């Protein structure tokens, strides 16, 4: 469903020039789970950003369901973010002025909420096990709870692809495992996932692990007997 062809990304010019991605190609099928690993600064976040249109490519293509999306204008990208691709970030990126339920409701608000939308948001909050925290602000939630709110927000518009940048990076192992099982659950429902992680334990959940170094793919590992 998603194909990245010869993607490259260069920041700055001259002395400050940084090649963050260098000729990266990969393929994501429906229901796929891909983990991206590599040392700090190797281009993992950059890869996710260019796939989802949060940043622009310097070269190459991103093709989603047969259509190039790397060259779309802002309005077309908005359509993609409203239902095809969603993000989960290491720092959660919740709006601190809104309660958990309102944060989950936000994507529905932007694509035209109706009367049932609030119930829908509540239903999704139940899925991540936070129905009793609906009225809490992010500052009143633990890291794991905040990340579950962020996941609920990501899936409320029913995206086919979820891009997760170190979603368990800020958590202890136990909390991380809870979050991870949520991703597994989403994956079994048929959603594709690309997840950046530093943890080999986490990566074991993926079908394929891609190793990046200095913006290049240096290794790919297929995991047949994944967890």
């Amino acid at each position, binding site marked *: 469903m998603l194909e990245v062809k010869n993607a490259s990304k260069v920041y700055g010019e001259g002395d400050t020039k940084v090649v963050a991605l260098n000729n990266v190609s990969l393929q994501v099928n429906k229901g796929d789970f891909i983990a991206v690993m590599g040392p700090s600064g190797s281009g993992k*976040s950059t890869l996710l*950003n260019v796939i*989802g249109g*949060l*940043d*622009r490519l310097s070269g190459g293509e991103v093709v989603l369901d047969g259509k190039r999306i790397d060259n779309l204008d*802002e*309005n077309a990208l*908005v359509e993609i*973010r*409203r*239902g095809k691709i*969603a*993000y989960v*970030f290491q*720092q959660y*990126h*919740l*709006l*601190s*002025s*809104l309660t958990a339920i*309102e944060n989950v*409701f*936000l*994507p529905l*608000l*932007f*694509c035209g*909420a109706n009367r049932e939308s*609030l119930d829908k948001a509540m239903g999704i909050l139940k899925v991540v096990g936070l129905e009793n925290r609906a009225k809490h602000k992010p500052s009143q939630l633990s890291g794991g709870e905040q990340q579950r709110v962020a996941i609920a*927000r*990501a899936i409320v*518009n029913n995206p086919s692809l979820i891009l997760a940048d170190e979603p368990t990076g800020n958590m202890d192992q136990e909390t991380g495992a809870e979050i991870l099982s949520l991703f597994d659950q989403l994956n079994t429902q048929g959603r594709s996932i690309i997840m950046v992680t530093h943890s080999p334990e986490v990566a074991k959940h993926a079908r394929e692990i891609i190793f990046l170094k200095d913006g290049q793919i240096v290794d790919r590992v297929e995991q047949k007997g994944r967890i």
Partner: protein
Amino acid sequence: MKLYHLVLKDILRRKKRVLYAALGIVIAAMTVVGILTIATAGQAKIYSQLEKYGANLNVVPAISNVDMRLGDLSMGALMVGENYIPEAKLPEIRQIADGEIRKALGIKDDVDIATIAPKLYVNTKVKGTSLLVVGVEPKEERKIKTWWKIQEGKYLEERDQALLGAQTAQLLKLNIGDKISFNGSDATVTGILEETGSSDDYQIFVPMQTLQTAFNKEGVVSSVDIRALCNACPVEIIADSINQNITGVRALAVKQVAETEMGMMDKMNKFMLALAGITLVIGAFGVVNTMMTSVHERIKDIGIMRAVGASRRQIIKAFIYEAVIIGIVGGIFGYLAGTLVAYGVGPLVFEGTAINYVPQYLPLSLLLAIFVAVVSTAYPAFRATTVKVSDSFRSL
């Protein structure tokens, strides 16, 4: 929940920041409202001062002048004969004056508008001194000479009373209750005027009928003063119309006075508007500054909203909602503060002027405040949405 709910929630959470942003608007609106309120009071004051100029129009008998010339040298004009205006012409004069004012101001009802004050001048001897006795219609005269103050006694009320100019009273050593006589008729001194600095100080005023009877001048007057003091009153048109339609009289617009009135008012208005305009521009810069900071602080939030599907338009709309709310708050408080400032400062600017709050400046203040807030928010908000989402996450 709608977009504006989101905005309201955000505003309520950041009360301090929002109040700070509104403060700039409050100051701008306050200054503009303050200046305008003081200017309005100043205008009222100038109007009331201008009223002291009295008549706007002067109607005199059409007398034949004989130019006295010696070659090219003018020796002035010699008035021929004693001339009067028949009282019968007063209603016609009123009709023309009121008619033209109604036309100019678009007034429909037909109450009397202009003040029409006829006068009869007689030069005679009182207590052996030759002076001018003036027959007046007491009520009308009072309306024209708003600056008259009674020093002693009271104003003319009935026949055979006399009101003395300050100097007359002194020179003739007359007091309230004294009797004076002219041409065989008697009148009692009922009042003495304060000094006016004009020829009124040397005259005696008696009711019209008293003087007419005393000198057998029933049914005639010497001149008529017409006062139609308002910005748009067409004094020259009234004068032309009287000259064309009424024979035997000559109407003169007291043009110079009228023009200075308008000129003063006009200059003052322009000055005040310029001052208000400059303040608004300076205030707007301050507002742009706070709004830019306020938008910049939320670059990350903007990035989050865009990452979960907000369009640029929605983000800009949210900021404009916020600006409108800030504008409403700023406009209301700016109006209140500006009015208070006017009450405090106004009397110092125009000594002793009574300041009145002007309700019409509330909508003006609101409109200005909302306009400034929206304009100064729209651009930074638009700029903020052009930042790449990935960069906006880096900004904090």
